[in-house]
């Protein structure tokens, strides 16, 4: 690992050390600090625990008991002063000793979390009738994630983020508040600067100012059906600093694989206990130290680990921003280089963003554009899949230079042809891709009258993907050692246009304040994919379809869908403490038959600020803020791809042959009468701040019910179709969310803050096909939707057991048999999810840690299945490869009266149980043997940051601000004792709890960051 330390890291370390030394000399430089006192405008008394921040920096402090503060800064800085219960103020520092007055307000929530935006319209949180949370940049970028979704993991109650695998460019599954759709999409809507986009994985987390998480379905009224799963409202930076601001951030981290599935190293390659140098399976003789043809000694440690290399991730971010009056701009550039944990896997990303706000008279024009260019070059799953089947004596290092004809790794010499040399696979199977993502918007806003504004916003999201998958041809006289060369080139272009015309009005009538929005939206999505391939290339290193024998494969497809909508929202506020919001939206979509294509969905929400309605509570108790809220929504959704209403035909089986054409119908039975599905959701909650806002808590109860889901259900093939599109099923969610955060220690220089969130999700399938019909639906592999059971459920193949759960074996052979019905184990999504973030800040040093805990879910591993089959799993050695009596087994005994009783089996050994055939058929064949509770507690992030004091910076002359830090992710995990399979967080094909046989084990990272402002 250490040989990979680059110069960058070395410099980072050096800078970190330098910072520590400088900090010791930094305190007490009065001319580099701003001091002041904050007083209440009402009574002139000092206000303590007010947050003081130099705008545009990470420098924060708090006023002491006398309202006084000291913060590093100079004349000309803008100071942002905010506190619960007071209006925030911006003060230009015109001298070193400031006197600031703040005015009490009805805004009682932490102002740093005030901005909740829908359609770019800002709202005070107290008006909202559903739960929201705000994650700001500094929280999001802990651990320097490449993808904003990584930064959200474990930080928001009700939001679950799961990583798919350990590739250089991993995918994520993100679900909010359980699942509402049996087979469809359960991820929230992403809205970037007011424009709904399908994906944010390419958004640079450093460009994000804040992410507001709207957990309820309320967002659907304003953004459309996709908001049924909640929404992440992302605001990118818009520019700050009247003198301009240049910021540079560098972070480098190293990653190392961990949590490999355990492997045995007692028995070597062979079959039936006999050593065989040509067998890849580990069913041979026990290792005895003698030197055999290949290598008969098991290596030290786990040979599988040696396949992995140390990954590296280097991120450079540069940004410029400036504000001039109301006009602003923000420009950022990013470069990322990633080296994966699989040798030769790599990826790079270059991106830029330019945001501006311009005012021309009363017209305000804002625009944002971002461009990202992502290159990846990886090998598919093969090397690891090969590796975990290899015997413990596999001399991996001798396989690297397989191109040498005399190498043991060369396919002509490799000890088996059944499983390939991992390095041969790494070098000959390559997947390359170039992705270009453009995301932008133009927005014009014009105040028609003092109370009425009109706005038009046009958004574009475009994703162009070019892929090239190649397999290098290898010719061999040895049967089974040859490999066909192939190439597949693909392009996929996706474009989404989104336009909103919004009229918004705001008027006051006495104590009643009215806000109203009316809007019109159109959306168009177009996809065009083309691919062309050849699977019999003629030359080893020429990857072009022209040099092939056999067929050219490929095709193209174009998909277009459109919809338009009208929507409205009205909020009435009474005296600033009681708010009622009504929403409504009508969508019309191209996806459904014209008779069903238009659908309406309404919503209502209310909030009541008790502490504002009855100020006496605030004055006479420890309570500072108490809010009750509730909402109800009905949301329509069309979970269907274009052209799904008709039966389509295609040519198959090599047709056309000359002028003979041959068309076959699709195996999916369409349903022209399909209708939108509807989700009803209800939410009620309370927010409470007390003890001078040192403690904030929120408790919410959420209910949702989705009916008539659109999904392609598996149908009996005897209907003529293997799947059928239906409007069926009902899913119900009962959720409790609780979060609390507070300052455990709060003083001017020392602060300990902790935030904890807990979510309990009871996601149940209420109905599938109607009463009297089938009661389960197979989602994917062992994942099921079962009527009356948690969603999704794990069902595993199991042995026939008696009523005490003992395995029934045959009286003669001692062998078990399969139970007719698979056994239910539990849900594959943990019902209990917890997150804890803790920050300790002392002067310029801050220590941050976050933990993630999920309990009550199940997982199963197909890696273990494959390892049992190949004899590398430790389970296969537990009886020393000798025949044994199946523990806790029973034998059926027929009684004279015809009844059957079961007697413990103590003597009948399972026939053939010392050999692979038994383990294949009777152990690997039963998924009960590799299912385990997926409980875990993980430390996701640990970081230490140090912000150089003003004095130290002054000595360095050129910088305004310097922060350096070290950070680590996935430092440890505690798993359930039965789980030696892998990381229970991983998933495959959208199926939580399913650890696929292709899954590459997870990795942990250690790295350094430096952030410099000029």
């Amino acid at each position, binding site marked *: 690992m250490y040989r990979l330390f680059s110069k960058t890291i070395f410099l980072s370390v050096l800078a970190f050390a330098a910072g520590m030394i400088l900090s010791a000399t930094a305190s007490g430089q009065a001319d580099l600090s701003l001091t002041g006192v904050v007083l209440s405008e009402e009574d002139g008394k000092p206000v303590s625990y007010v947050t003081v921040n130099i705008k545009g920096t990470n420098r924060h402090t708090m006023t002491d008991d006398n309202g006084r503060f000291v913060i590093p800064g100079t004349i000309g800085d803008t100071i942002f002063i905010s506190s619960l219960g007071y209006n925030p103020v911006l003060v230009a520092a015109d001298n070193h000793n400031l006197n600031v007055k703040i005015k009490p307000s009805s805004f009682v929530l932490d102002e740093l979390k005030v901005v909740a935006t829908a359609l770019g319209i800002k709202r005070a949180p107290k008006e909202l009738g559903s739960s929201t949370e705000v994650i700001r940049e500094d929280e999001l970028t802990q651990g320097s994630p490449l993808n904003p979704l990584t930064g959200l993991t474990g930080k928001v109650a009700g939001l679950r983020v799961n990583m798919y695998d350990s590739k250089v460019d991993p995918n994520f599954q993100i679900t909010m508040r359980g699942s509402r759709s049996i087979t469809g999409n359960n991820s929230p809507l992403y809205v970037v600067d007011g424009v709904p986009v399908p994906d944010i994985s390419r958004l640079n987390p450093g460009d994000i100012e804040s992410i507001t998480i709207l957990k309820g379905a309320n967002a659907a009224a304003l953004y459309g059906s996709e908001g049924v799963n909640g929404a992440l409202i992302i605001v990118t930076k818009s520019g700050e600093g009247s003198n301009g601001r240049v910021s540079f951030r560098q972070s480098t981290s190293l990653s190392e694989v961990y949590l490999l599935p355990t492997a045995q190293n007692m028995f070597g390659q062979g*079959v039936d206990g006999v050593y065989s140098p040509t067998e890849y399976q580990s069913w041979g003789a026990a290792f005895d130290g003698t030197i055999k043809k290949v290598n008969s000694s098991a290596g030290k440690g786990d040979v599988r680990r040696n396949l992995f290399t140390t990954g590296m991730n280097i991120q450079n971010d540069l940004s410029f921003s400036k504000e001039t009056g109301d006009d602003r701009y923000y420009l950022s550039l990013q470069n990322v280089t990633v080296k994966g944990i699989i040798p030769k896997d790599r990826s790079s990303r270059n991106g830029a963003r330019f945001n501006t706000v311009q005012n021309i008279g009363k017209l305000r024009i804002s625009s944002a554009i971002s461009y990202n260019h992502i290159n990846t070059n990886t090998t598919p799953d093969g090397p690891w899949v090969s590796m975990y089947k290899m015997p413990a004596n596999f001399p991996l290092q001798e396989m690297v230079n397989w191109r040498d004809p005399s190498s043991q790794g060369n396919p002509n010499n490799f000890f088996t042809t059944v499983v390939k040399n991992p390095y041969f696979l790494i070098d000959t199977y390559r997947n390359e891709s170039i992705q270009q993502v453009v995301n932008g918007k133009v927005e014009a806003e014009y105040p028609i009258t003092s109370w009425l504004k009109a706005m038009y916003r046009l958004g574009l999201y475009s994703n162009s993907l070019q892929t090239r998958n190649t397999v290098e041809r290898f010719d061999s006289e040895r049967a089974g050692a040859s490999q066909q060369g192939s190439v597949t080139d693909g392009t996929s272009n996706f474009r989404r246009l989104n336009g909103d015309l919004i009229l918004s009005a705001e008027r006051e009538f006495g104590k009643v304040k009215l806000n109203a929005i009316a809007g019109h939206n159109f959306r168009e999505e177009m996809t065009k994919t083309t691919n062309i391939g050849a699977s019999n290339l003629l030359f080893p290193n020429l990857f072009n379809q022209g040099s092939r*024998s056999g067929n050219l494969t490929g095709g193209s*497809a174009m998909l277009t869908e459109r919809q*338009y909508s009208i929507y409205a929202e009205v909020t009435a506020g009474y005296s600033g403490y009681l708010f009622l919001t009504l929403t409504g939206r009508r969508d019309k979509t*191209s996806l459904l038959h014209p008779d069903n294509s238009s659908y309406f969905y309404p919503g209502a929400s209310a909030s009541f600020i008790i502490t504002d309605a009855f100020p006496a509570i605030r004055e006479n108790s420890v309570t500072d803020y108490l809010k009750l809220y509730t909402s109800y929504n009905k949301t329509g959704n069309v979970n269907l791809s274009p052209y799904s209403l008709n039966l389509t035909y295609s040519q198959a089986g090599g047709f056309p042959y000359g002028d003979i054409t041959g068309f076959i119908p699709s195996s999916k039975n369409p349903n022209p009468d399909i209708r939108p599905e509807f989700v009803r959701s209800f939410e009620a909650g309370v927010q409470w701040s007390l003890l001078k806002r040192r403690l904030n808590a929120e408790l919410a109860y959420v209910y949702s019910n989705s009916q008539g889901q659109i999904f392609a259900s598996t149908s*009996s093939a005897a209907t*003529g179709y293997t799947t059928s599109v239906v409007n069926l099923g009902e899913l119900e969610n009962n959720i409790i969310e609780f979060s609390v955060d507070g300052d455990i220690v709060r003083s001017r220089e020392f602060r300990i803050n902790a935030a904890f969130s807990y979510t309990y999700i009871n996601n149940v399938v209420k109905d599938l096909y109607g009463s009297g019909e089938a009661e389960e639906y*197979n989602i994917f592999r062992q994942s099921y939707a079962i009527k009356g059971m948690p969603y999704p459920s794990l069902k595993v193949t199991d042995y026939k057991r008696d009523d005490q759960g003992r395995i029934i074996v045959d009286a003669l052979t001692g062998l078990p048999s399969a139970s007719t019905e698979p056994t239910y184990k539990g849900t594959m999504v943990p019902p209990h999810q917890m997150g804890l973030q803790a920050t300790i800040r002392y002067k310029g040093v801050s220590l941050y840690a976050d933990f993630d805990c999920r309990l009550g879910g199940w997982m199963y591993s197909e890696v273990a299945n494959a390892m049992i089959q190949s004899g590398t799993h430790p389970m296969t050695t537990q009886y020393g490869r000798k025949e044994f009596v199946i523990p806790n087994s029973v034998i059926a005994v027929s009684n004279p009266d015809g009844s059957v009783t079961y007697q413990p089996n103590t003597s009948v050994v399972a026939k053939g149980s010392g050999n692979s055939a038994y383990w*294949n058929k009777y152990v690997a064949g039963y998924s009960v043997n590799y299912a385990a509770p997926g409980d875990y507690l993980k430390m996701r992030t640990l970081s230490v940051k140090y912000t150089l004091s003003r004095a130290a910076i002054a000595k360095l002359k050129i910088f305004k601000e310097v922060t350096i830090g070290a950070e680590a992710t996935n430092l440890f995990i505690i798993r359930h004792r039965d789980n030696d399979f892998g990381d229970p967080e991983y998933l495959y094909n959208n199926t939580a709890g399913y650890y696929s046989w292709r899954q590459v084990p997870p990795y942990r990272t250690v790295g350094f960051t430096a952030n410099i402002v000029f």
Partner: protein
Amino acid sequence: MKISTSYFAIIVIALLSVSCEKYLDINKDPNNPVEEYISVEQRLPAAIYHTSLQEVTQLNQLGSFWGGYWGTSTEGSNTYKKEQLYNGPAIMAKRDGIPIWENGYTYLNYYELLRIDAEGEGAPAYKAIAMVMQAWHYMRLVDTYGDIPFTQALQGQKYPRPVYDNGADVYKSSIDMLSTAVELLGRSPLPSEKRPGKDDILFNGDLSKWIKFANTIKLRALMRGSEVNSSSYIQSEISKILTAPSVSTTASVFLTETAQVQPGFNATNLNPFWSTYYRNSSNKTTNGYIHIRPTQFAIDSYKLLSDPRLSRLYAKTKSGEYKGVIFGYEGSDAEYNKDNTSPLLGPSENGGKAAAILKSQTQPIILLSAAESWFLLAEAAHRGWISGDAAEYYRNGISASMQQMEVSSSERDTYLSRPDVVYNNTLERIILQKWLALNSISGFEAWSDYRRVGLPEIPNTPGASPDERPRRLLYPETEVQTNIAEVTKRDVSDITTARVWWDKE
């Protein structure tokens, strides 16, 4: 100002709404044709191709393993483990199982939509062909699974969970379908009728051959019931075939040539048997070729009769002998390695000449061989169901096979005169010769004959007790998931004990 602004907004919204109907009318698939584009002549070739594909790969493979022809080299023993260990649950699995059920019904649906389309287009010949092929598939499914959906099958969401019909009833209904189809095929067509031509990749539009084909399938179907059905039912059905107009000889109403499918295979789209079990389009040997080997039992059976077909079927090993494997043997003995055992003989190993099974990459797919037809007639005559000389039918069956397998007429005549080959009025000899003739061509028939009459006495997989033989498949996992009530009613949990209706203990 205020009023005009509101009006402006209303007008804009109204304008946007009016143009919407057209704006949203884009849901017609630009990528794939829908029902209205497709006519019978575009349906028929793909449907027949898929029937023959299933026959020559999925069904022939399973039947060749369980009918005594095939085993695997040690290299291939993992690939075909579930077949060799009679692992019913693994075979029924949705994933990595053998989806005979799913494919069977999918292909049945091709014919169902063809039949409906043919009625709409006024093309009774297509309708009749669809019915013949549906009968074929239904009976294949009964042979594999026992009771299956028939009356409620292929009706989409009308019967999402079709009830299962008794296997024997499905056979009867299929036989009736064949009768109806023969009637339809025999009537003189109207001038306006659409009739198949080169889109009929089985008989090139020759409807008289379709009639014979249907009759032969019917004979095969009646033969299945030999051990359980009353002979009066069988006799009456056979007499229906024979009383049809224009019957000159008994044999003339049945197909006496090989029914083979030729869509126009070429150097890139090869015969699927060839590309699965021999060589791909770049002339590289496939895994099927490397992994599959004849059983020693098969080789010995030919050797015992000095059968000239042996040298046309298999390649010699390096040591110059014909060497087979033991079906189901799990050891990794070197003598059963791919290099020490005989693969199928192909032109590349035969001086470029056609061999018994592998002739050329564009060879047609055999759906029903002439030899099988003759042996069915021989058995029917042996059982006294039809008139005619069983010995002659028997000899014709052997001759047809010899011709198919590239054996010269002189070698054939020598063989036919052998006392241990000459017909001796026993069923054993008919079935043995049928078995020798259908090797790697109709493995499914060999397995079915073994289940029906227990002949020839093929060896069992070493790990199984003598009476443990695969007699059917379990209902597939997809059916367990979607139609559990019907599956539960049948309570089939072991493929070596539960039997299909015609398989008598």
